[in-house]
């Protein structure tokens, strides 16, 4: 068994999801099956392989794909120019509970 009931509850808590009691076992079984399948990744020898964190074509070859140098050489930074972004009211209009200029939420700090 890859994942226990307790772990499902812990993960749900981390993900801010409330699960109904009957859902816990369903998800446990399904996650267990998926994690067992994903376990095949352990078969491969990945020593010396860099994780892929860039999708730039010249780096698509694997091992060299994430060197910080390659990323730094072509940082694709745009000029830092101030542009107007007067959207507060538009954005707040979508909020379930807004008290302009704020989003209102249940009390966070006690006393």
């Amino acid at each position, binding site marked *: 068994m890859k994942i226990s009931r307790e772990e499902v509850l812990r*993960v749900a808590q981390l993900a801010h999801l409330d*699960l109904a009691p009957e859902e816990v076992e369903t*998800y446990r079984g399904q996650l267990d099956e998926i994690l067992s399948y994903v376990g095949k*990744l352990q078969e491969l020898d990945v020593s010396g392989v860099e*994780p892929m964190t860039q*999708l730039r074509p010249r780096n*698509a070859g*694997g091992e060299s794909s994430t060197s910080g140098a390659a990323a730094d050489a072509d940082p694709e930074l745009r000029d830092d120019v101030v542009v107007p972004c007067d959207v507060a009211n538009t954005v707040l209009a979508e*909020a379930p509970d807004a008290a302009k200029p704020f989003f209102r939420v249940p009390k966070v700090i006690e006393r």
Partner: protein
Amino acid sequence: MSAATPWTIATVRDALLAKKISARELAKDFFAHIERRNPELNAFLALCPQRAFAQADSVDAAVAKGQPLPPLAGVPVAVKDVISTQGVRTTCGSKILETYTPPYDATAIERLEKAGAVILGKTNCDEFAMGSSNENSAYGPVRNPVALDRVPGGSSGGSAAVVAAGLSVISLGTDTGGSIRQPGAYCGIPAMMPTYGRVSRYGLIAFASSLDRIGPFATTITDAATVMSVIAGHDSNDSTSADEAVPDYLAQMAKTIAGLRIGVPEDYFGKGLDFEVKAKVEAGIALLEKLGCTRVPLKMPHTDYAIATYYVVATAEASSNLARYDGVRFGLRVQGNTLMDMYRKTRERGFGPEVKRRIMLGTYALSSGYYDAYYLRAQKVRSLIARDFSDAFEKVDAILTPTAPTPAFKLGEKTADPLEMYLADIYTVTGSLAGIPGISVPCGKTSAGLPIGMQIFASHFGEARILQLARAFEKAGGFAI
């Protein structure tokens, strides 16, 4: 094709210029057709006639004045409901965004409208684009217009169905692990996933940011190429969009394919591949050989690890991206006694089962103690999969595979087993992980009349190469092979 004469971008243009029909009349015809057909297909979630007619009227005004028409003038287009449209409800197929109306347009939408396209409405999809059958939509499944008891594929099932049914001339979908190409194959139409970074993701509501791409569905390769030429290109609002020149796809695609080397990886033709799909794709490859291509057998040894890699990487990114749905700034809020209580209740009520499953899987893969074993390892295997491709593209100009292991399956057939559903993406996720472009083109039908798709991959920014092969295949009758 249900319409007697399916419209294409070119026939719309010709009809407008010849004043045989106005853009407004055309849009009206399409809305009437949608009204008749959509109840059984459930492919559109929302229509935006006001916006469509306003755009159509401006096209008609340009025609009346004899002004030059932009490339998509008056062309009806449908948009997957994960792409933001200002003032038009955008739900992502989720209850958590049931009332959400974006305050801005995605860059792809802006470009389509600037090119004269008439947006008809938003198409149904799996919730947050998570699924391979469109059965994960909170608004009910889409039916495949070719066979109503079957799924249209997913997650862009609605976008594929509306074009296949003639309810729109073209559409936009999104592809994270196969979500454009697989429904294209199931519904029997061309469907293209561009290179990562080729089309701006600005305004695309994120599922897995290192994998998500926007791309077109069409009925012809020429139309797919025309849409690509409109939506491709750099956008300063998407820091991952590439600052690469956009080639003239229509000109490039007309070139001869004689002499091109096409790679055929044996790893894509093994266990689990339906025999009719295999036979048709083999026939498709033979046709390309007849047209002068050289077949090169390939081995891509990490193919078998792609689904496992994908479901770690994609769910990890999703668990992070979907943290924003907390009931505070937009969408659903379920009241709670505390802030945490509100978050949990909102997410419990708002998300469907597959989305919760993926959020939990991703949270688990990123959690302390498991990060190295799952996420970090998957990112390393992803490098190996990408290297399989870069090694292959040293030897070949394109790679040919089936798009999906089977034709469209029946509604309800795979809903009980999430893992089995994931395996429908077995041939498409590889290209997603590598960041390369791919297309699915129609490649005949099964004896039961179900469409089969053939997939063509090229190296990064090789869209023109893909379109060139796809166009030659189409011209030689490959779609009906």
